[in-house]
């Protein structure tokens, strides 16, 4: 978990020019860090490459738009990292 978070936080810091020490596991990528959807494409690209996965952004967006999930479930970083770990584990299985 911690290494996933470090990787994701470093990607966000580098991609969005956000000071690394302001990014915490409880940060909400949109509400706290101010990352917009276009910047999040760059982050998703970097995460996909770093972990060898494909973040299901379309599915997540649909679930949020349909009221079946909240943005916190996917965009608070500790939750995002948990999703990444799940995707990595599923790929390895």
């Amino acid at each position, binding site marked *: 978990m911690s290494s996933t978070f470090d990787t994701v936080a470093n990607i966000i810091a580098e991609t969005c020019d956000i000071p690394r020490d302001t990014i915490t596991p409880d940060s909400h990528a949109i509400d706290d860090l101010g990352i917009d959807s*276009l910047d999040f*494409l*760059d982050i*998703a*690209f970097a995460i*996909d*490459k770093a972990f060898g996965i*494909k*973040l*299901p*952004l*379309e*599915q997540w*967006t649909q679930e949020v738009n349909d009221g079946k999930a909240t943005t916190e479930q996917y965009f608070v970083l500790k939750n995002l990292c948990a999703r990444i770990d799940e995707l990595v584990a599923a790929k390895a299985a």
Partner: protein
Amino acid sequence: MRPEVFKMIDRVVAIDPALNKIHCQGLVPQESSIFEGHFPGHPIMPGVLLIEAMAQTTGWLILARNRFEKMPFLATVKEGKLRTFVVPGQNLDLYSEVLHEGSGFVVARTQGLIEGKLICNAELTFRVLPWPEGKMKAVVLKVAEHVNFPLTDIANA
């Protein structure tokens, strides 16, 4: 090519069987209203239209990959380089290669050459979205026929 109406591609030359690469061509016309302003007495293809030509090339590749199920929209231009002037009468060879296909987006490396010499390149990101309401998909499919897009081959790929 009719740059005044954003028709930057004359023909799709080839798409590789894995749908990772594409080659298109566009002949810069001798006459176009864009040259009235860019520039008077010194016609040069606007750099933004070279970016557009590379984007359209990549767009055809993305459409091939998703069998026209969704429409790519240009979202990001990175490391765009316009290396030399392009003038009326020159034939652009345009190439694009997918670097990554994510969920709802595609990143590609693209370049334009004239007589084998690199004249422009960029890394482009596209959002890939459901077709808008209306006739856009039908229009794009019609343009596909005009540019010799291999519709049948792609449908059977």
